[in-house]
């Protein structure tokens, strides 16, 4: 009887081992591919060294250095260190900073608590409850009252202001957006007309013109005695703007719901309110969540425009800090730092929205 034994496996030829194979497959599979690789390497060679030199190798990391001793070849990171509080809190009084920290702390605690809650019913109550109560708490903490010293809004600034404006914008525009979305889908002609005109008007003009409108024209509409806070005007403008976009996002959700759902709710004898609140909106909102997050990201980016109407969001702080004669000419450091902070926030939000999209899309397939 012949016996068979497995031949000893040979090592693949050198040209087929892992690293070489990977290079060949991914970078040098053809002449075009190889030339593309060289072009890419050349671009990297052009861009990367100056960036790295400026931010790291030529930069001055001595956090106590002042503007003159810092040198001009590379970044001067002590500028960020010296103005760090201004970037985060704006001109908020030093001894009251704990209030801002508490506000941020409560947000973190709420998010942590919310993700711990397993039961979906309690979770919904918890989320809705905190959306209703938290803004009041945050307002008292930031502005004052109830025994806390009042801090006028022109002292607010930096990342705090950015977060406040974005949060107020999204929370206030949400119910309004739902109303306009329903209005646009409504069979009542007048209501539909008003909603369409409003939404299309706002979406057709740049945010900056709406902010101008809110800061210059809006006060004219009210009787002379009413003194309008600058921040409040900006918030009204931002909310009016965001409402139109949220309305369109929610309309997308409304349109995605099969007609059978509307008919079934009618057949079950539900009133308009019951149908909307119990059948249509819960489904529509769930579908729209990823896009709502997307719209929130856009709003967060847009808050930088506040600088044009003279509010000190994080970007405007760069100008404020470098106009101080101690730190002349350090704009680039400021812009890079603000860009990095905002980038981290926006990038994690967009990752989150992608994850939501995947989660919801599998449920509906």
């Amino acid at each position: 009887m012949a016996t068979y034994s497995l031949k000893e496996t040979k090592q693949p030829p050198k040209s087929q081992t892992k690293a070489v194979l990977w290079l060949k497959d991914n970078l040098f599979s053809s002449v075009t591919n190889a030339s593309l690789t060289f072009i890419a390497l050349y671009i990297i060679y052009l861009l990367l060294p100056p960036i790295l030199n400026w931010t790291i190798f030529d930069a001055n990391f001595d956090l106590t250095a002042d503007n003159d001793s810092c040198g001009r070849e590379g970044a001067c990171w002590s500028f960020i260190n010296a103005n760090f509080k201004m970037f985060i809190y704006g001109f908020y009084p030093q001894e009251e900073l704990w209030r801002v920290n508490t506000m941020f702390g409560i947000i973190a605690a709420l998010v942590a608590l919310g993700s711990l809650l397993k039961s979906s019913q309690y979770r919904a109550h918890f989320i809705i409850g905190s959306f209703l109560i938290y803004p009041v708490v945050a307002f008292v903490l930031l502005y004052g009252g109830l025994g806390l010293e009042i801090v006028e809004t022109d002292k607010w600034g930096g990342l705090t202001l950015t977060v406040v404006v974005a949060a107020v914008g999204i929370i206030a525009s949400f119910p309004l957006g739902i109303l306009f979305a329903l209005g646009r889908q409504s069979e009542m002609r007048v209501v539909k007309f008003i909603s369409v005109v409003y939404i299309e008007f706002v979406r057709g003009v740049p945010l900056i013109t709406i902010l101008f409108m809110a800061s210059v024209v809006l006060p004219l509409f009210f009787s002379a005695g009413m003194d309008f806070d600058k921040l409040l005007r900006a918030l009204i403008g931002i909310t009016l703007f965001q409402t139109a976009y949220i309305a369109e996002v929610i309309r997308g959700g409304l349109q995605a719901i099969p007609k059978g759902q509307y008919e079934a709710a009618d057949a079950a004898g539900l009133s308009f309110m019951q149908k909307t609140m119990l059948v249509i909106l819960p489904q529509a909102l769930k579908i729209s969540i990823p896009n709502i997050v997307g719209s929130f990201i856009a709003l967060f980016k847009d808050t930088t425009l506040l600088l044009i109407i003279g509010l000190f969001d994080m970007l405007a702080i760069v100008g404020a800090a470098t106009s101080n004669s101690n730190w002349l000419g350090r704009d680039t450091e400021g812009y890079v730092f603000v860009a990095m902070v905002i980038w981290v926030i926006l990038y994690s939000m967009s990752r989150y929205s992608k994850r939501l999209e995947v989660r919801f899309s599998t449920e509906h397939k």
Partner: protein
Amino acid sequence: MFTKLKSLLYNNEVRAILFQILAVVVIAYFAYQAFDNMMLNIEQRGIRSGFGFLNDEAGFAVNDNFFLEYSPASTNLQAFYVGIVNTLIVAITGIFFASVLGLIVGISRLSSNYLIRKMATVYIEVFRNIPILLQILFWYSMALSAFPSPKNSISFFDSIFLNSRGLYLPRPVEGVEIYLVLASFIIGVVSYIFIKRRSNKKHDDTGIETNTTPYFAGLVLLLPIAVYFASGAQLEYPVLKGFNFRGGVDLSIEFFALAFALSIYTATYIAEAIRSGIESVDNGQKEAAAAMGLTQTQSLRLVVLPQALRVAIPPIINQYLNLTKNSSLAAAVGYTELVTIFSGTVLNVVGQAIEIIILTMLVYLAISLVISLILNIFNKKMQIKGK
């Protein structure tokens, strides 16, 4: 009687009418109140009303002005027109470069080359997550510090100059020759379209493909240039006088920074639209193209891209609209477009906020209406037939 009234009140149609009347009354009331207050406020502050200010002398100089007649002695209306033209110019420049860059990056994102793919991804993720205003300010401050002073300008062939004030290009001197050049350009384009159509027809009939690129180069590019030089036309070159260049066309550094930032930012969105368009093309299409013996490039150009663009173009057109609206951020660096000139300078001088801001908004509304009209026509045309 009472029950009848009650049943009427519960009738859906009657309720709808009542509700709408209520809505109109509430809105009319608030509008009336606002209008009333407004008139009172305007009177108290001594602000004029109406559009009479448009005929007043503007009294300020404008940095960037391309075709229109404008001087500080011109009226506010002329300043308004200069603003509109400048908005359109920066928008068109931005749209052009954003499209080219977006197309390249979008295709690169799906490249089989690892390095190219990753670079495209990094570019998109970095630039779309940084607010556009920050990018504009950043590039502006970079341009101001990185470009040399007018005396040490970077010069190309002694006719194009770049310095920290702007880019200076030679300008064709106006005269009869320009019309000759324009006419030859139009003739070139028309005859190229004719040739292209014939070659397409030949391809449809016989399957033989003719290369029309030389015709394109000859008729559309070379012909006007040849006519230009043959007619002996002159160029006006920018010349250094005093502290800066005079003559020629000058593009201010503000324009540069704005157009650059808008292109870089919007290109990321266009790239994503193109990528998702390409991904929407069924794999079978690529396999069929490969099975028919088309090369990679042919398959991309003839099979994948035409189908991908149908999906990608609506979001791309939306991005064009966004770019145009974002060009209003010029106010932050002072490129003299509509918002800077009109809602900025003119508003400061005249003080008639309502009229000025409404006029500004109307211009943007008109632009968005035109763009959404184009979009609708496109969508109608591109609908897959037989569906």
